[in-house]
């Protein structure tokens, strides 16, 4: 299929406003007649649900969480970007656009990125109006800080809990619309299939996580805002329930999945300490504003870090990147940490960590200042590691954090299935091969508040809908398939819990499809994943009953989808014979160990098409053209 990204023409700074004018509207009196299903209540889902309900559409909102406020967005720490230029340091829509395209290593669609930068300021306005308690200066105006990949201060924050405050803002708007009857919320309901009728997305099948009951829900359009798939690596900074199932169900129904191999590894996480661990904890990037990364110059230097004199320390980021220093983008900082540890210079018991040191900042400003800015992070670190970061440097190591890949969408955020829209981390747009810090919250809210209300209206206004009967073959069929899927999991009746397979998968992904990827390793990974799949379907054990709250069924179903996604991710990584952003192919690097892109052959988004159980997926190319930001080699020196 020829992919049409539906990007408007004309000067980039006029495209979105012109396009908003060109799109069709639904007459207010008719809006109630349209139902929109929104799966997910993170920043993207909640903001979309509230905004569409305000326009008068009938919104059905679903989440496997008990409450909309539990979505993983709640855990975001550091901040949200916006081109407000409040500090007069030269920020502008153009500069945010440029930083994002460059930060993404020239693998994002320019028009989408420009629109994102363009609406970024409105997001802050909206959140402030909702009562989000952003950090303020003494005079009462909004405070900002710096994040990686930018040389200015454009990140708005609410202590170390920015995601929480933004989500609670969106949740409050959602709650108001539930109260007004515009939104019906269905909690503890997991989408287990997508219903496609006459080529259009017309509904979903959901499983009630308390009773196990399956039900079908019909609509005129479906929005997936189901988050990212970092947990395919088992250990990540994501919440434990984050999964890829909604994306994979849509994929099997015909939506293309783009750039699954663009995964982001965050440089500052609490290192792995043992195999009891169920997750890794992020230490926000904002700490790199005031922390300096270093390792001892001498291998095996086991002295207490405070005893190691300045001249015997290697502040390697400052040494290698004098102009960005500790604030280089995430992919660069992560790769350098791995390289240092691979050379045997890492610290801690396992040798798999580097220091993030706040001594200078604390000496300069005092502990109280530090506590005010980062108190919750410092406490969290202390509690988890039993080491006091006010007294000794933190030890950090990279961990899986975010996935830039996702379902392919056009400029309207519509997938290759008409009527299926995808928002937030679940789609592939905007961040290219590497996302800049504090830009995910921005994108989720941009999609939900400012893009989907227009593009979904346009779709509804421009489509003639036939009524779908509850017993139509596509509806009943999807429901039957869902039931068969659960029976299949229960029926294996082997000996091994799903979690063990997940762990095995994660191990392969991290070792061979992680920070440094190589042809041979990727081919091995694909073979190993196929074996894990075979063993899974031979030896899985799901105990308990399917007609009950059963965490094992939920987990097993998610692991089955992770296995399929893992294979696709490795396949994508193998096909992309270049390095860009978070995708680092060992074979393609500069003499200095930086990523080496191949713009000649790979300046496209790889959109993978499902072609049946056990069949190789088909590659479709969404060619990227750069009219405004001409690709250059990304330098942070």
């Amino acid at each position, binding site marked *: 299929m020829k992919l049409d990204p539906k990007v408007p023409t004309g000067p980039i700074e006029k495209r979105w406003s012109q396009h908003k004018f060109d799109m069709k509207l639904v007459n207010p009196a008719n809006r109630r007649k349209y139902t929109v299903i929104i799966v997910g209540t993170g920043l993207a889902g909640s903001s979309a649900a509230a905004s569409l309900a305000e326009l008068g559409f009938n919104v059905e909102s679903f989440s496997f969480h008990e*409450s909309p406020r539990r979505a993983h967005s709640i855990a975001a720490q550091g901040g949200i970007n916006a081109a407000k230029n409040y500090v007069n340091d030269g920020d502008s829509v153009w500069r945010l656009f440029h930083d994002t395209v460059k930060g993404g290593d020239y693998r994002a669609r320019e028009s989408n990125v420009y629109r994102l930068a363009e609406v970024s300021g409105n997001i802050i306005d909206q959140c402030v109006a909702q009562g989000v308690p952003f950090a303020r200066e003494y005079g009462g*105006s909004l405070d900002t800080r710096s994040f990686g990949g930018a040389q200015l201060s454009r990140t708005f924050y609410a202590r170390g809990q920015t995601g929480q405050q933004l989500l609670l803002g969106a949740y409050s708007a959602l709650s108001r619309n539930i109260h007004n009857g515009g939104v019906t919320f269905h909690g503890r309901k997991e989408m287990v299939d997508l219903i496609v009728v006459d080529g259009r997305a017309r509904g979903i099948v959901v499983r009630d996580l308390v009773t196990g009951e399956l039900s079908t829900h019909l609509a005129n359009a479906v929005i997936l805002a189901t988050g990212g798939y970092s947990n395919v690596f088992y250990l990540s900074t994501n919440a434990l329930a984050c999964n890829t199932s909604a994306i994979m169900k849509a994929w099997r129904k015909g939506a293309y999945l783009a750039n699954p191999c663009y995964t982001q590894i965050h440089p500052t996480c609490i290192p792995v300490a043992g195999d009891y661990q169920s997750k890794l904890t992020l230490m926000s990037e904002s700490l790199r504003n005031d922390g300096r990364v270093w390792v001892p110059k001498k291998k095996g230097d086991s002295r207490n870090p405070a005893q190691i004199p300045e001249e015997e320390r290697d502040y390697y980021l400052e040494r290698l990147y004098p102009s960005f220093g500790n604030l280089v983008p995430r992919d660069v900082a992560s790769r350098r940490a791995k390289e240092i540890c691979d050379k045997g210079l890492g610290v801690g018991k396992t040798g798999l960590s580097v220091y993030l040191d706040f001594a200078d900042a604390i000496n300069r400003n005092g502990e109280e200042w530090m506590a005010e800015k980062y108190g919750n992070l410092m406490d969290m670190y202390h509690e988890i590691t039993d080491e006091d970061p006010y007294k000794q440097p933190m030890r950090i190591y990279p961990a899986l954090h975010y996935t830039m890949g996702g379902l392919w969408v056009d400029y309207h955020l519509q997938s290759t299935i008409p009527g299926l829209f995808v928002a937030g981390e679940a789609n592939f747009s905007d961040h290219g091969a590497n996302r800049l810090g504090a830009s995910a919250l921005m994108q989720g809210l941009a999609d939900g508040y400012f893009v989907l209300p227009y593009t979904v209206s346009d779709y509804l206004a421009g489509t003639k809908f036939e009524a779908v009967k509850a017993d139509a073959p596509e509806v009943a069929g999807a429901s039957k398939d869902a039931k068969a899927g659960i029976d299949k999991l229960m029926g294996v009746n082997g000996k091994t819990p799903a*979690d063990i397979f997940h762990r095995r998968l994660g191990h392969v992904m991290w070792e061979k499809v992680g920070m440094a990827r190589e042809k041979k390793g990727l081919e091995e990974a694909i073979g190993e994943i196929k074996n894990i799949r075979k063993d899974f379907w031979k030896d899985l054990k799901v105990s308990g009953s399917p007609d009950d*709250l059963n965490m094992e069924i939920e987990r097993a179903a998610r692991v089955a989808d992770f296995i399929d996604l893992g294979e696709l991710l490795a396949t994508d990584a193998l096909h992309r014979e270049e390095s860009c952003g978070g995708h680092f192919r060992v074979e393609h690097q500069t003499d200095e160990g930086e990523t080496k892109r191949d713009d000649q052959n790979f300046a496209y988004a790889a959109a993978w098409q499902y072609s049946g159980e056990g069949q190789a997926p088909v590659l479709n190319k969404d060619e990227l053209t750069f009219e405004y930001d001409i690709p250059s080699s990304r330098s942070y020196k």
Partner: protein
Amino acid sequence: MDFKLKVWRQKNRDDKGHFEDYTAKGISEAASVLEMLDVVNRELVAAGKDPIAFDHDCREGICGSCGLVINGGVHGPFEHNTTCELRMRRFSDGDTIVLEPFRARPFPIIKDLVVDRSAFDRIMQAGGYVTVKTGQAPEANGIAVPKKIADEAMDAAQCVGCGACAATCPNGSAMLFVAAKVSQLALLPQGKAERKERALAMVAQMDKEGFGSCSNTYACEAKCPKGVSVTHIARLNREYLRAGFGSK
């Protein structure tokens, strides 16, 4: 580390429920209580038994999903932490640990250690917001909010909605939860227009859900994972009185 566990098992809302004994062996002292339960559950599943159901997600103290009564204490015997943040090094090797669900009348038990806290969502729906539609917002820096006020609002806004306040209160009151939201929005200029309606509507919904009334025992502040201060309850009371007088 090894532990003996007594865990509350209850098939569903209507079941009477009972304690069952388990052992947890070879647990790392750096593991959290929930990671210990993961180990126990893996063994239960491998043996074909029904695993212990409990709510959890972020495992870093922010989503508010987890919540157990541990040895009689809400989120465990200590102060200002969530269940997922509680590490086994705080216990001694060989200890017996009793695990129960949060208990408050408006939080019915769904299964084992999982309770239904949707009452909190309904309280928020009754008025825990500022009425502003998408696209209506004025320029963000248009209204200055002094740092002190913004900080105080943030102190209140940190509530994770876990329900520990209600579960620990001898009266099963949700005052701290309601107060945190009312106070946050009453402090900020953006929330002032609706402060009266908000306080009345949220308190009315809280009563309707069956939460008890506050008798100032202040057990809630100590048990709140974020240490949300009871001074916000005082502010809620003022807001409520003010609203009551105004409406009569």
